[in-house]
């Protein structure tokens, strides 16, 4: 059901740039774009034509026959939802005949519908109830003895919503929502006529079907047929608060619908610029972790990590934490302590931690988890274009003619973006998927990639270089764009390099395992498209040549003129809700906010004036280097905000040894986790529902989050950091996160125009937002690159050092699934575990047969770094020689397998290439047995 009070125009808007048409409705003139429906034109006049099958998020269907109108000069009673306006049209929406016809229609509907409104979950927010009241149905002349559907059984198999077919009016909104909005096509209308029924495919139960629990059908349903279980349990909300999702980098806007201080449901906001009223299972339904019994609610301290925790007051915990860092700083110097910020915390909170490290600790030893994911994006796009962030907004994909998805699985990792890509492909755009695995996007209902280039893991640079080779040697490069927009000297050097035969499709076919003819054809498709956009994920960045791949894609986009307008660009799909923001906020050892190097004297002077301390001009330690320094004895203390490195870092034995070697670890998080085993202080943090602040999504959109429930531990994360800084002798006094953002805006040119007042008015702002872009910047590098001229760079393919061998003949690569998020800390504490309960190892049938592995069997996976055990799933989604798993469950300890190899430029770990062997398991490994939370 829609949110109460939301205005529904009945059908989607026509194209804003279409010619205008004037018509008359009930004697009143209205001017609308050509293509607008009569229903929507009436709604513009605040004339609400009754309807049940129409809603403005879906294309009109014309089935309910309630929205009939009279049009002068036309016979009969056309449906206003499917009738487009025309100039001079005169429409009547009410008449005695229309009223009679509508009453008859509703009478039929009511004759096959339960009449228990007072105990129905939709009572008070039911479109069916509204239409019955509007039509004035007072009796049902058909009686109650005839055939009906009132005894149809409910389907409660989905953990989040119920399907009650007795209340279904077969308006097909749910079917259309699943098709048009989500693109999964999981629902259909079975049978015909009176026997028609909504069904989730042949499976009959939602839990066994292809349903991905996005909730679009539930939101579209005009009755209680599809209803959230939380609404059934708690009743209708009394008020709502606008916020932003705390899961992935899409950053969907939600209305948190509340009753008192209890959340009833999360409803995607129809004005949300990133998600346009759509959501996924995580954002829409998986918020129960915030009130899970496992939530840490009290500060804990201990002197040694082999001692039990002591629950203490906030004052004692903060004083203990400050004293621990002071002790180390005094004995070993400021370079011995540092911080790791959270990509789930707000911009304001990340800003404060890096400020604490720089101003209170006195070092630049601060990093964030982009180190593990998109640091190569920051480096590569920064070098090539001048800013290391997405060039486009999400809506840009709707103007793309060719979409290239490289090393990403958007239908699972960024579902709402995945839905948009699917929609564009259904409209006719071509899709090229570059991935060693047959990700869902490669072939789905009504979506099939024109090319799925299933290259060997670790060979991205060779393939992208080959694309560029084709563009250049076949004269498909956009010379006008290059001449106007790019550095000519560097282009000349790159052109010479890329044209060499070793970069040809024929030469790289052997390296990549992709036939040359396919590489050539796909490259031509990209290079000749009117608009071609590249969308990529960690399958690009988490490699020893992650930055080189980003540079290679930038070269390709510049060479083909695919930068600086809608429908093109380089689009990193950032994994977490605020990893973009964490980078923007200077949570890097080498950069202040806004990506300005710590050695830049003018920038540093501005921060020194604002913060009142001298700042270090040298880069600090990356988190990767902090582990090494800890083992070498020169790094002793770490403040970890909302991260779980003992699960998420690669080469886990190394990382755990480093944590053990440190003298003092302070953690701030929602739950005790793998890393808390090594901590001396645990401070209970706050979720996105428990504080005010901002997140920045993958399209650089800064959006508000708003507190709806009190923090479980009593304090928002920003308050904790302020108290810690103050206890360290560096007072931080802010009364509200808006003041922190004001400080950020004063110190960061790209954020200069950002304020909470502006965010509240605009709903969200894409940086840069300043005097030259007062309303923000949806598309970057229009007219000129941020650095001036685009920079071509030499991107030689250098094979990874990780090689298969007789001992480790398979390559392990990793990724995400839809229902779980990253380390699973939040999603494992929701009913999502019913849908996916463990990490599985996908193995090709050939490889499984060679090893005597059956589907569902437990297997041991061994690399040169360690061993672990998990369950096998035999699948042809992976190619022979490649195995794949996810990293959401600590029990699987996947990162005991991954290695120390990393991106040459940023040390982003090479999670995607690990040489392994897989064999039937005998028992749990030491790694599996070490898991505690």
């Amino acid at each position, binding site marked *: 059901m829609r949110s109460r009070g939301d205005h529904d125009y009945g059908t989607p808007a026509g194209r804003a740039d279409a010619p205008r048409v004037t018509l008359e409705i009930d004697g009143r003139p209205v001017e609308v774009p050509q293509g607008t429906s009569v229903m929507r034109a009436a709604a513009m006049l605040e004339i609400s034509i009754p309807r049940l099958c129409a809603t403005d998020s879906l294309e009109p269907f014309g089935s309910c026959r309630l929205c009939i109108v009279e049009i002068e000069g036309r016979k009969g009673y056309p449906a206003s939802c499917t009738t487009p306006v025309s100039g001079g049209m005169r429409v009547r929406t009410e008449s005695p005949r229309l009223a009679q016809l509508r009453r008859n229609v509703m009478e039929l509907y009511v004759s096959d519908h339960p009449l228990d409104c007072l105990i129905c979950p939709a009572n008070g927010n039911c479109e069916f109830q509204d239409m019955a009241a509007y039509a004035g149905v007072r009796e049902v002349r058909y009686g109650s003895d005839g055939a009906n559907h009132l005894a149809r059984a409910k389907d409660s198999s989905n953990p989040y919503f119920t399907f009650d077919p007795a209340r279904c009016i077969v308006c097909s909104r749910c079917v259309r929502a699943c098709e048009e909005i989500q693109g999964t096509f999981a629902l259909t209308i079975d049978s015909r006529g009176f026997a028609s029924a909504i069904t989730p495919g042949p499976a009959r139960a939602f839990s066994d079907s292809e349903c991905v629990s996005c909730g679009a059908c539930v939101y579209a349903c005009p009755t209680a047929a599809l209803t959230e279980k939380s609404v059934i349990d708690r009743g209708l909300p009394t008020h709502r608060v606008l916020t932003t999702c705390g899961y992935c980098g899409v950053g969907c806007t939600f209305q948190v619908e509340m009753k008192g201080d209890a959340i009833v449901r999360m409803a995607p906001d129809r004005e949300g610029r990133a998600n346009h009223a759509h959501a996924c299972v995580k954002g829409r339904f998986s918020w129960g972790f915030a009130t899970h019994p496992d939530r840490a609610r009290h500060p804990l301290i201990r002197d040694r990590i082999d001692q039990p925790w002591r629950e203490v007051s906030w004052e004692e915990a903060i004083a203990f934490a400050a004293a621990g860092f002071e002790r180390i700083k005094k004995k070993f110097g400021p*370079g011995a302590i540092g911080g790791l910020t959270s990509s789930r915390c707000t911009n304001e909170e990340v800003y404060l931690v890096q400020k604490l490290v720089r101003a209170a600790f006195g070092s630049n030893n601060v990093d964030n988890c982009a180190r593990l994911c998109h640091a190569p994006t920051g480096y590569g796009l920064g070098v090539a274009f001048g800013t290391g962030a997405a060039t486009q907004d999400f809506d840009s994909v709707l103007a793309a003619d060719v979409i290239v998805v490289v090393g990403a699985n958007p239908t699972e990792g960024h579902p709402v973006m995945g839905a948009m890509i699917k929609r564009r492909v259904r409209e006719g755009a071509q899709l090229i998927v570059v991935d060693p695995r047959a990700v869902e996007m490669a072939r789905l209902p009504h979506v099939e990639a024109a090319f799925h280039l299933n290259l060997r893991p670790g060979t991205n640079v060779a393939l992208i270089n080959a694309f560029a080779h084709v563009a250049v040697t076949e004269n498909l490069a956009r010379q006008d764009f290059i001449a106007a927009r790019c550095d000519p000297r560097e282009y000349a050097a790159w052109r010479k*390099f890329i044209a060499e035969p070793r970069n040809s499709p024929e030469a790289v076919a052997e390296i990549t395992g992709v036939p040359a003819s396919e590489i050539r054809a796909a490259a031509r498709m990209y290079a000749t498209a009117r608009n071609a956009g590249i969308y990529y994920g960690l399958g690009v960045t988490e490699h020893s040549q992650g930055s080189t791949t980003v540079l290679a894609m930038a070269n390709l986009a510049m060479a083909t003129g695919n930068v600086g307008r809608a429908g093109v660009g380089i689009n990193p799909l950032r994994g977490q809700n605020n990893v973009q923001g964490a980078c923007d906020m200077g949570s890097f*050892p080498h950069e202040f906010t806004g990506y300005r190097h710590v050695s830049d004297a003018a920038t540093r002077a501005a921060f020194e004036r604002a913060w009142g301390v001298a700042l270090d001009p040298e880069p600090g330690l990356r988190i990767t280097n902090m582990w090494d320094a800890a083992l070498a004895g020169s790094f002793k203390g770490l403040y970890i905000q909302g991260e779980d490195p003992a699960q998420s870092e690669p080469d886990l034995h190394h990382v755990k040894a480093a944590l053990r070697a440190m003298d003092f670890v302070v953690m701030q998080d929602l739950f005790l986790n793998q890393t808390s085993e090594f901590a001396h202080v645990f401070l209970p943090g706050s979720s996105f529902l428990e504080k005010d602040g901002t997140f920045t999504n993958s399209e650089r959109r800064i959006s508000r989050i708003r507190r709806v429930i009190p923090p479980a531990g009593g304090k928002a994360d920003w308050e904790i950091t302020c108290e810690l800084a103050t206890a360290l002798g560096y007072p931080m006094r802010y009364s509200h996160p808006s003041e922190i953002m004001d400080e950020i805006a004063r110190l960061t040119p790209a954020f200069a125009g950002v304020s909470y007042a502006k965010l509240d008015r605009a709903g969200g702002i894409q940086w840069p937002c300043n005097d030259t872009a007062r309303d923000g910047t949806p598309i970057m590098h229009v007219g000129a690159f941020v650095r001036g001229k685009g920079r071509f760079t030499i991107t030689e393919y*250098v094979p990874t050092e990780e090689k298969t061998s007789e001992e480790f003949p398979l390559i392990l690569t990793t990724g995400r699934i839809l229902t779980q998020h990253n380390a699973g800390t939040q999603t494992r504490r929701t009913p999502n575990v019913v849908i996916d309960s463990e990490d599985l190892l996908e193995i090709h049938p050939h490889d499984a047969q060679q090893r005597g592995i059956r589907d569902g069997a437990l297997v041991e996976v061994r690399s040169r770094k360690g061993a672990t055990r998990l369950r096998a799933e035999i699948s042809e989604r992976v190619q022979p020689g490649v195995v794949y798993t996810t990293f959401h469950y600590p029990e699987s300890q996947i990162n005991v397998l991954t290695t120390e190899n*990393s991106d040459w430029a940023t*040390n982003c770990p090479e999670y995607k290439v690990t040489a392994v062997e897989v064999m039937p398991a005998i028992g749990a490994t030491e790694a599996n047995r070490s898991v505690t939370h």
Partner: protein
Amino acid sequence: MDIPRLVKMANGIGAYFEAYPDRQQAVNGVADHLRRFWEPRMRRELVDYIRRGDGSLRKVVLEAAAILEKEAAAD
């Protein structure tokens, strides 16, 4: 710091920049990268390692480290 890891990281940087046709640009690229992204103790340990004479670093890294050593001496 873990010297084998430092050497590995340095050689990774060197492998990228070695592809540049202009040798001096390559050397400057490595030096600039180390300057901008390596914490001082890491740079010092690299230079100390080179002084001890192990031959596992790429030539371009050795040349870049020489620039950094000269700069450090001048400071």
